[in-house]
């Protein structure tokens, strides 16, 4: 598993380098804007950084599905599937790589965001305002009894939902690359499958935990567990299909 993970990280490295390069350019633009007091550049760079913060994690997810698709549909797949590893390990390494990558990207983006906000406020001598706003937010959270556990649970729940979505995408791609391989519209069928299962999972979760939405901790915990169960079920289903219908 260790080796599979090592090469999964290596395979996705170029996509991550592009993301890193994009952030570096935008960050440089922001810092230069702050240094030379060029508000348009600061505004432009901030806007793009916020946009990139949302897009990059999604791009990491899409890149991992593209890598899986390539492994299943090109001769490069021999490198992976001729190793003495089973499909559960192979897919497991892909899921873990994706989860870890998104988690690290999320943490890095959050830290960068905190740093940038602090820099911008400091540059325009608004740090006092920032602390004031933060205090108000914290106070509001305290008032709403949103404690550290709730915040952590929220991020955990987001990560679990992400893993569930990635597993739906893997399942759809494996379906099109194995059972539906060579059939007309297999890509379209896989895409429709992805949309339908995503909606189904999300709707079922919504109805199942609707009664808990006044209790944030219970709701978030139930949602995280539900997403994880769905992710695990999809992972086993996808690996079983891959195992029985491998055709590289």
């Amino acid at each position, binding site marked *: 598993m260790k*080796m599979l993970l090592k090469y999964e990280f290596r395979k996705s*490295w170029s996509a991550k380098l592009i993301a890193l390069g994009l952030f570096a350019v935008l960050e440089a633009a922001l810092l230069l804007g702050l240094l030379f007091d060029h508000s348009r550049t600061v505004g432009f760079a901030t806007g793009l950084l916020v946009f990139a913060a949302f897009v990059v994690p999604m791009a990491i997810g899409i890149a991992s599905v593209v890598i899986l698709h390539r492994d299943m549909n090109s*001769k*490069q797949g021999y*490198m992976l599937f001729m190793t*003495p*590893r089973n499909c559960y390990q192979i897919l497991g390494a892909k899921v873990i790589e994706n989860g870890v990558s998104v988690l690290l990207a999320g943490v890095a983006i959050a830290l960068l965001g905190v740093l940038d906000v602090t820099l911008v406020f400091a540059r325009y001598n608004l740090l006092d305002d920032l602390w004031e706003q933060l205090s108000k937010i914290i106070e509001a959270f305290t008032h709403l009894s949103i404690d550290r556990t709730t915040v952590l649970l929220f991020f955990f729940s987001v990560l679990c939902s992400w893993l569930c979505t990635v597993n739906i995408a893997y399942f759809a791609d494996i379906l099109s690359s194995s059972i539906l391989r060579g059939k007309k519209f297999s890509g379209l069928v896989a895409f429709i499958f992805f949309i339908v299962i995503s909606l189904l999972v999300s709707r079922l979760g919504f109805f199942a935990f609707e009664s808990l939405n006044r209790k944030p901790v219970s709701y978030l915990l139930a949602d995280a567990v539900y997403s994880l169960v769905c992710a695990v079920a999809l992972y086993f289903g996808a690996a079983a299909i891959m195992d029985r219908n491998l*055709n590289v």
Partner: protein
Amino acid sequence: MLESREVTMRFGSTVALDHVTLRLEPGHIYALLGPNGSGKTTWMKLATGLLHPTEGQMLWKGETVGMHSREDVAYMSTEPFFYPWMTAKSVGKYYEDFFADFDPARYEDLLRRMDLAPGLKVKNLSSGMMAKMKVAVTLARRAKVYLLDEPFNGIDLLARDQIARTIVEAADSDTVLAMSSHLVEEMEAIADWAVFIKQGRLVESCDLETMRQRTGLSMADRYRQVYADLGAGDKEVL
């Protein structure tokens, strides 16, 4: 032993292999023969576990091939399959990471003998260099089974001789070595067993010496005889 029992492989309506029963024993070098589309590559991929038979069983030491058999089976496909970001050195590292039987010193030696620098990038290799590297990394494994699909493809005469020597070196009394090639005469110099596959069916699996004595034909002539009824366009280049 590596064995296929009544193996049938269908791709949609196409039957690539039709009830093929074949046993490959250690200590032999097998020449898998047949025109394009006869099922040689499919048989090798089934033996590696890259495909699953529609019917029948593919067995290694009496067990269905899969994750564990891949520890013993070294497969070399005819197409390039390395990741484009790799170098000759990192290809070796990849094999070392995954295969306990990989011998890095032997790989280095084979790279040197084939004039391939470790720093060469896979994406910059010519087809001949790629073919040599595939052979080097596959034969650097101390595997129990070698399955080489078209190892002489795209290689000049001198390099071909070198590869033929390396293949013979890799073969011993504990090893099953099977290869396919369009170059039947080159194969005849190496192999001691011939397997003729025609349109997905096994025609004959025979000891070459016995076959020569029985028919008075060389492997190449026997090949011409077996596939005589196929159209000229379907015949291999001898």
